[in-house]
């Protein structure tokens, strides 16, 4: 809402010493945030005056152009003295032709600076001293017209043209919150300003509502969505009468274009009062105005020239010809006032807020009128606003205010009972009863004290004041929140983060520590993502939740996997020539396994346990996952050597670091048919028997489809499952201090046998004396035989006492025997 200071001052006796800044600060502290203060007025500085052209000498030039040497009377103060040749005046050379001697023009004198830092000075040109400039509209920043110089219809030579053409003002741009609908008007803002400056306020719109009457244009209300309708006829208006300057100036300051007197006045009164009005050409109305709901198939051409297909939920203004306006949103073309309109019917009605809101949104017509209606217009305001508009039109356009029609009822004023003490209790600071009464009375509430409670009569322009807490807010905001003290309550139970919340944080910190950088990508995906991931038909990542109005049609789903988002982040980095990447993301994925619609229990009381259970059961699965992707160099080549390429080991390390940080040792099982992974380079990750996810190289076709660098590796696991697996406790046993026996074994097995399985067999066979098993070499070659490999393990064997060679050999033999039994492992000679 834009509020010119001059307008506020017209309606409220704001003290003269108050500045725009001080008024703005008061508004902002009331919750009417002033976004900025705009200074309107002339962009011209220096002497700009009215001049009368005394003479004009046409002087053809060699280039074919004709210039005019003019003598211009610019007033006694500025004229050169009279000479034999010329009367008192100044000589000015002008190239435009659209003026005659005797015309009033605008003259920029030397010293004047026009927009664009164009400084005017006397200069010699075409054989004359040109002592100023006769201006066109665009040259002085008044409009776009450069058709010729500006010829004025009034003014006297020497008069300050800046004063004549512009009104200086300061305009506050105020962010009005949805509750304070009365502040979508100068009237409401002036009331707040008056209260804030502790000065009186006279509401020029607070007229008593009339009794129903029907002398004016007939009106029928056929929908409950219109509570009241005032129709005031104005007759004999001069259709060519211009809008007065103060109206044009204020409309411009508020961002509204001047159109015609009738339209300008309706806009002016709307801005001033908050009541949207509409002007009909009375002679174009066919029969009574009827307010009703739209019927199937009806159409309306609105003022903006668009044909609108109407919805059965649209509230309409109609006459015998059908729809002539969308109530509270926009009028229709057929009854529009025009350059010949002499009889006008002014409409000021009370339309249902929700209905106007839906219609405006449905048709994408968020007008100044609909904006006010959807926030609730004072239902008792219409008649007074229509009368004020009628007065302004007749004042500046002639004619007479004709008969009126008023249909509908005055709304009852709401009564709120306020317990004394509630205000101080909620605000946490003592506010005296007299302060409470003073604040509420200045807001226009009727206040009656009765025992220890106040009975408050709420004015019609305050639909936001409904219950006692609303009144507390009204008092608190005007008392000033900054005057409330500060106390710091401390929770009685110091729970802090739960173990699970702490564990999640441990995971994130562990993988970041390992070298991965966290991303938080947008959690949307599309069908092409599902296809590029090569997911099978029965994969539950193919059960996405679809959005009703996705931000991008290409990504209508919520993510079922973190990988596509990470892949996009990889692409972003690559496009910026950042090629060595280790990214991770943690967050919810969404899987719609088929859940019912959500119920909407009453909010009057706590929902029942059954209702709460039904609410929860309606939500799709939202598992938290953890994923990472690596590509390029893990460690770049550098002074210490060739570096290290990022490969499958780093995503496995990621999973292991995450697991270890919460006390879980991962088990890896080789898998060969899981998407989107490489069939020979993928491991399933287990915590105990629970599968957490997969790590490995991406399938080459997936890599290609997402435009990733070859051999990109990734890991994705279900964080929830990992946190579930986190043990609550652990044990520390005695540490054996006897000397360790070291034994190496080389075992030949089929190439398909997993090293981890052989290692596990050795552990199982070696028993508790086998302290550690470390794979230190994998060898394939002719000596071993095709399709086979040799795995070399270092065993460390330790007991409570020093072991003999024979004891150690037994452990080793048992370990090897287990590997032989399970995998046919043969000791390499």
């Amino acid at each position, binding site marked *: 809402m834009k509020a010119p200071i001059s307008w506020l001052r017209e309606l409220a006796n704001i003290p003269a010493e108050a500045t725009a800044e001080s008024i703005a600060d008061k508004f902002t502290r009331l919750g009417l945030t002033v976004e900025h203060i705009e200074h309107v007025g002339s962009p011209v500085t220096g002497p700009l005056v009215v001049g009368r052209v005394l003479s004009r000498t046409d002087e053809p030039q060699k280039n074919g152009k004709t210039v005019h040497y003019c003598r211009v009377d610019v007033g006694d103060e500025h004229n050169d003295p009279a000479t034999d040749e010329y009367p008192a005046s100044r000589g000015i050379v002008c190239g435009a032709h659209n003026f005659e001697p005797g015309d009033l023009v605008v003259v920029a004198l030397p010293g004047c600076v026009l927009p664009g830092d164009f400084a005017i000075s006397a200069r010699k040109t075409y054989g004359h001293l040109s002592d100023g400039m006769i201006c066109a509209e665009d040259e002085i920043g008044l409009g776009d017209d450069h058709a010729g110089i500006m010829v004025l219809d009034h003014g006297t030579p020497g008069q300050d043209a800046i004063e004549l053409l512009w009104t200086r003002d300061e305009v506050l741009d105020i962010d009005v919150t949805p509750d304070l609908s009365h502040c979508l008007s100068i009237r409401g803002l002036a009331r707040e300003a008056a209260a804030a400056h502790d000065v009186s306020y006279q509401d020029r719109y607070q007229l008593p509502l009339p009794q129903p009457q029907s002398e004016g244009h007939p009106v029928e209300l056929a929908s409950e969505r219109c509570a009241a309708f005032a129709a005031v006829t104005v007759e004999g208006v001069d259709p060519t009468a211009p809008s007065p300057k103060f109206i044009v100036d204020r409309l411009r300051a508020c961002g509204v274009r001047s159109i015609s007197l009738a339209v300008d006045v309706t806009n002016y009164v709307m801005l001033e009062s908050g009541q949207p009005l509409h002007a009909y050409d009375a002679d174009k109305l066919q029969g009574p105005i009827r307010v009703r709901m739209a019927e199937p198939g009806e159409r309306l051409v609105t003022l903006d020239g668009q044909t609108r297909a109407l919805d059965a939920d649209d509230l309409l203004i109609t006459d015998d010809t059908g729809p002539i306006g969308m109530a509270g949103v926009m009028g229709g073309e057929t009854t529009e006032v025009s350059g010949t309109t002499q009889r006008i019917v002014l409409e000021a009605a009370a339309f249902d*807020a929700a209905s106007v809101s839906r219609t405006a949104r449905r048709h994408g017509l968020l007008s100044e009128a609909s904006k006010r209606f959807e926030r609730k217009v004072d239902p008792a305001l219409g008649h007074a606003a229509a009368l004020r508009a009628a007065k302004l039109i007749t004042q500046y356009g002639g004619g007479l205010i004709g008969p009126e029609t008023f249909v509908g009822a005055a709304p009852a004023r709401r009564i709120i009972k306020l317990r004394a003490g509630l205000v101080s209790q909620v605000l946490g600071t003592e506010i005296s009863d007299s302060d409470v009464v003073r604040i509420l009375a200045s807001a226009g509430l009727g206040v009656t004290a009765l025992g220890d409670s106040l009975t408050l009569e709420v004015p019609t322009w305050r639909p936001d004041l409904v219950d006692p807490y609303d009144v507390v807010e009204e008092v608190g905001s005007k008392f000033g929140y900054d005057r409330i003290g500060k106390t710091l309550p401390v*929770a*009685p139970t110091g729970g802090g983060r739960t173990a699970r919340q702490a564990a999640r944080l441990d995971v994130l910190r562990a993988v970041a520590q390992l070298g991965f950088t*966290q991303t*938080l990508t947008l959690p949307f995906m599309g069908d092409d993502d599902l296809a590029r991931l090569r997911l099978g038909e029965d994969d539950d990542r193919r059960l996405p939740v679809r959005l*009703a109005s996705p931000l991008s049609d290409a990504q209508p789903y919520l993510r079922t996997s973190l990988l596509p988002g990470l892949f996009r982040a990889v692409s972003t980095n690559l496009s910026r020539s950042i090629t060595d990447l280790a990214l991770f993301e943690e967050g919810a994925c969404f899987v719609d396994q088929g859940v019912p619609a959500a119920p*909407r229990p009453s909010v009057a009381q*706590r929902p029942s346990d059954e209702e709460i259970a039904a609410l929860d059961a309606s939500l799709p699965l939202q598992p938290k996952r953890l994923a990472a992707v690596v590509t390029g160099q893990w460690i770049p080549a550098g002074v210490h050597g060739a570096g290290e390429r990022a490969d499958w080991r780093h995503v496995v390390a990621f999973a292991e670091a995450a697991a270890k940080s919460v006390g879980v040792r991962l088990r890896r099982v080789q898998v060969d048919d899981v998407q989107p992974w490489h069939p020979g380079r993928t491991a399933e990750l287990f915590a105990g028997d629970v599968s957490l996810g997969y790590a490995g190289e991406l399938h080459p076709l997936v890599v290609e489809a997402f435009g990733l660098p070859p051999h990109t590796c990734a890991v994705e696991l279900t964080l929830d499952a990992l946190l579930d697996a986190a043990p609550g406790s652990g044990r520390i046993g005695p540490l054996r201090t006897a000397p360790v026996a070291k034994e190496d074994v080389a075992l030949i097995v089929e190439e398909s046998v997993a090293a981890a399985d052989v290692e596990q067999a050795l552990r199982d066979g070696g028993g508790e004396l086998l302290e550690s098993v470390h794979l230190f070499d994998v060898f394939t070659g002719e000596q071993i035989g095709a399709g086979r490999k040799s795995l070399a393990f270092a065993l460390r064997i330790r007991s409570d006492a020093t072991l003999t060679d024979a004891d150690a050999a037994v452990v080793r033999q048992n370990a090897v025997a287990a590997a032989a039994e399970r995998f046919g492992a043969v000791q390499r000679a």
Partner: protein
Amino acid sequence: MSGPNDNYDPKQVSALSEEAVDGFVADALAAIEAATDTGALKQARGAHMGDKSPLALANREIGALPPAARKEVGRRIGEARGRVAQAAAARQEELAAAELEASLVAERVDMTLPVELAPEGALHPVTAMIEKMTDVFVGLGYEVAEGPELETEWHNFDALNLPEDHPARGLQDTLWVEPMTDHKLLRTQTSPVQIRALLERGVPLYVISPGKVFRSDEYDATHLPVFHQLEGLVVDKGISMADLRGTLDHLAKALFGDVETRMRPHFFPFTEPSAEVDLQCFVCHGASVGNPDRPCRTCRSEGWIEWLGCGVVNPRVLQACGVDSDVYSGFAFGLGIERTIMNRNGAPDIRDFVEGDIRFSRSLLGGAR
């Protein structure tokens, strides 16, 4: 220089003469002095102090002398050996020190060479900021409440007293799940978590709920459709606006140091009274207000930076959760994590928060600073 005798020859007793012994000593000292490293010194010691060195041999010959002469000769040789040993020890120390010195010089490395044992990992600034704020509230005894990002309309709007026709429920503002008749959506705020906390935990309640929220917003330099909030909710007996002010002041000081805050009225359906809190601009400290010569980009010369929304919990919200609003009252507040970071740390383009450029997360070295 005379070498050691190859074989013991008792006839060469002339070796015990004073001149001979002095000669041995002179030879030995010369050899010790000539040794330029500890290896050469070791060799010289072997030649002149070892078992077969002239002095050792001479020592052995003492026994062949008449008893009367033994004492004199014994003293002379002992003294000679002592002198040599002392010189060798001194030289040893000298050479070892020089060699250590040399090796330290030789072992010097450029300690400013890059060390890259792993890539530089980092938490996202949003994660770090959430945890920093969480620490502030955990210190006051609060708990952390969590809830689903895909929510029911009841939790996100109905229970929070949002009117049925409120524009926020529209497709323009909210990301609804298809079909809309299922009444499910992506939460537009973390407030539904507060509803869940009230329903599940009851009162008294001191919780914060950080998390992801969603709006049907443009994606541009200043808007994200998905961002993060941290909300707080306290419900207890006698909770007032003064408690809210004190708590937010505590948070502001923890995050921004000694900064002034301003609380002004605002509107939210779920709080009554509602307010917004501004931070005094920490760049211009208000000096840019009404001073066109010193404009401030950070606060747009307004002197204050909008920070968070808050208020006293609307009693209707408490009723919807079965809390007796005559006995209990509460306050709530909510702030944007991304905006807070932009206020503290810059980050001029909000899209950088979600695009995954690793330079963004690494800017603050993975912490909240």
